[in-house]
């Protein structure tokens, strides 16, 4: 074996642990899920039969599945853009080094470090229509019309879930934008100042375009994040009232654990996987451009 051959052999050995881990923990599970999606396995016993595309045909005809897809889409639009906007505004304000900005930075970032189960338990109490702090506050300031049934009204429940999600993840957008802002060169701002640009002009014509890469990454991460949404919905509303907050993952879970239909659940899982792969492709594409 020549010297180059030896070197490449050692290089493969270095990545071997990761390859083995990835295969065992990720790729094997994906392959197994795809196989299960063509069966009528109940998720418990060793007995199953191959049913070809039956699970997929049933899934495409299932109006609950499509409701969950639409809910995922609304969730994505509602969270990603508002989250990015609020994160950007906060990052710009924090960069101004106003008094107490470090304290606020920690406060805004804190929900990310909190478990979703804790956040949802607190919000269930806060959003209680009768005894909850939110409605009591709204009534106290005479905004009775806004004191709604946050988690119990099918027209509002998904919005409430989006609000809680934004509360939890806004700090991530803020810190990402803040890191991006800190890396921008000062001379660009000095040049803008010499040219007479004010705060708004600088923000829209200098800061935002220079943070395009950060925004793209946040949007793509948001898409993938919304596809993975499960815990916050399960713990806040359980997918109800009715089907108003059912997303793909909660529906998959219901199929697997309530209906004992692991084959049907796997077909939903494969659908999520395909959407996630398309999104990952876009992420790579955007990453290359920026």
């Amino acid at each position, binding site marked *: 074996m020549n010297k180059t051959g030896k070197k490449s052999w050692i290089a493969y050995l270095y990545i071997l642990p990761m390859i083995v881990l990835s295969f065992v923990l990720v790729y094997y599970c994906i392959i197994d899920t795809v196989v299960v999606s063509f069966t009528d396995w109940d998720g418990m016993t060793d007995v199953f039969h191959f049913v070809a595309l039956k699970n997929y045909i049933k899934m495409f005809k299932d109006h609950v599945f499509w409701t969950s897809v639409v809910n995922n889409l609304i969730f994505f639009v509602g969270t990603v853009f508002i989250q990015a906007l609020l994160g950007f505004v906060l990052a710009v304000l924090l960069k101004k080094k106003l008094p107490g900005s470090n304290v606020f930075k920690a406060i805004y970032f804190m929900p990310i470090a909190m478990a979703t189960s804790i956040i949802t338990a607190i919000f269930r109490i806060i959003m209680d229509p*009768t005894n909850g702090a939110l409605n009591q506050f709204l009534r106290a300031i005479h905004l009775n019309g806004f004191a709604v049934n946050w988690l*119990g009204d099918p027209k509002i429940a998904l919005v409430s879930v989006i609000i809680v999600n934004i509360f939890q993840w806004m700090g991530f957008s803020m810190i990402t934008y803040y890191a991006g802002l800190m890396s921008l060169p000062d001379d660009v701002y000095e040049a803008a100042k010499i040219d007479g640009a004010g705060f708004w002009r600088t923000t829209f014509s200098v800061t935002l375009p220079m943070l395009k890469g950060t925004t793209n990454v946040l949007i793509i991460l948001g898409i993938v994040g919304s596809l993975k949404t499960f815990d916050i919905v399960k713990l806040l509303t359980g997918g109800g009232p009715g089907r108003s907050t059912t997303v793909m993952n909660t529906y998959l879970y219901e199929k697997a*654990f309530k209906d004992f239909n692991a084959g049907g659940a796997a077909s939903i899982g494969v659908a999520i996987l395909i959407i996630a792969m398309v999104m990952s492709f876009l992420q790579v594409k955007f990453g290359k451009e920026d």
Partner: protein
Amino acid sequence: MKKRWKRCMALIMAAVMATAVVGCGSGDNKDSGTQGASNEDVTLTFWSWLPTNDQSEEMINEFEKENPNIHIDYTRTEQDDFFEKLQVAMASGTGPDLYGMTTGSMMNQYAKFSVDMKETADQYWSGWEDKINSNAVDQCTTEDGTMAGMPLLVAGMTTLMYNKTLMDECGIDKVPTTYDELKDAAAKAKAKGYVCVAAGAADDWINSDWFIQASNEFENGAVYEAEAGKRKWTDQCFVDTMNAWKKMFTDGIFEDGALGVSTYPDARDQYFFARKAVFFMTGSWHLGPTSSSSSEIQGTEIGNKGDVIGMEPFPGVSDSGEQLGTSGVDVMVSMNKDCKNKEAAMKFIQFLADGDGQQYWVNYLQGAPVSNDISYTGTVDGELQQQSIDDVNKYVSNAAGSRKLSNSEIETALQVAMQNVAAGADPLKELQNVQKTADAQ
């Protein structure tokens, strides 16, 4: 030297990785619950949602005192989470020796993992059939005749826990028995700033339990015929039941936003125990708080104020005003086919179903006994508690039928329909969706 070191590190990392992977797969085959002959020390694993944490320590200590060579390793999980945990454990072959179970669809699903309780009981517990309520045993038997578990407690739906102190304050003279009386009580409670009935309509299970119970008041037995495909879910009695359900929301019987409130802990703790609701919609298993010494209400607002608590059947919602409940085995215990110490396991089952464990549960007012030889022997905390126990037991013993459906997909469709109706949807249209689910099977 540097290259050799790098190569060594790479080899060590690969070896560590391989060991870790092999280690993951090898598993720990030690299963304490499956070791030992009858005279040796045995540990049995037991998973369930009942007994509660409050109850389990005392019950299990008592059993272990009676059977010093048998140790119970008990894991309690809330009911919904319990079934998810159990499903994963059973699928991977790591399930417990004994596990709590409900009748209906869950029992049918898990029967294939459980021993035939009749065969096992015949072997290790002579005369058990004379001691255990035969109706309860029937409910624990699948269609193919397998007894999937031993019944432990019987409970009924729907009951109304009431705060007598608040009723007096609101001028509500008696516990409502008809819908009109309930509506009148709601107006009086609202006038005093209280919620009438705290209900956790965010919970699927209590909604479908209510529907099954209330539909029997409109037409006794129709709901079971519909489940069996012998009649349509769009029949008038079901439309009437859905309309009655809708009125609970539109007439202000339930709290505003009940669809976003769970039964436990929200409706119970934040409304009824917090002294913000006069009534609480629940089942017969919740008779405990009718005693002022109940540990459940200690430290709560109603406990601190010394309010008088009672329980009565839920008011009749049909025009006839008849109050007709449902009942069923609330919890049964199944034995894993892999359990190797069945004799010890059966001793614990006997303790729970016919021994001191059963007596403890019954005295705790957790449910009605399945043992023919056991009845409530606890102290009765005044006339009101006695009346509550008598009225609720009578309601449960005269029940129209089972509390649960055995078809999980129809039950889910019904639950979704009920939440949609509560949110304003048309009852008939929603019932048509339930019928579609039934037709698709």
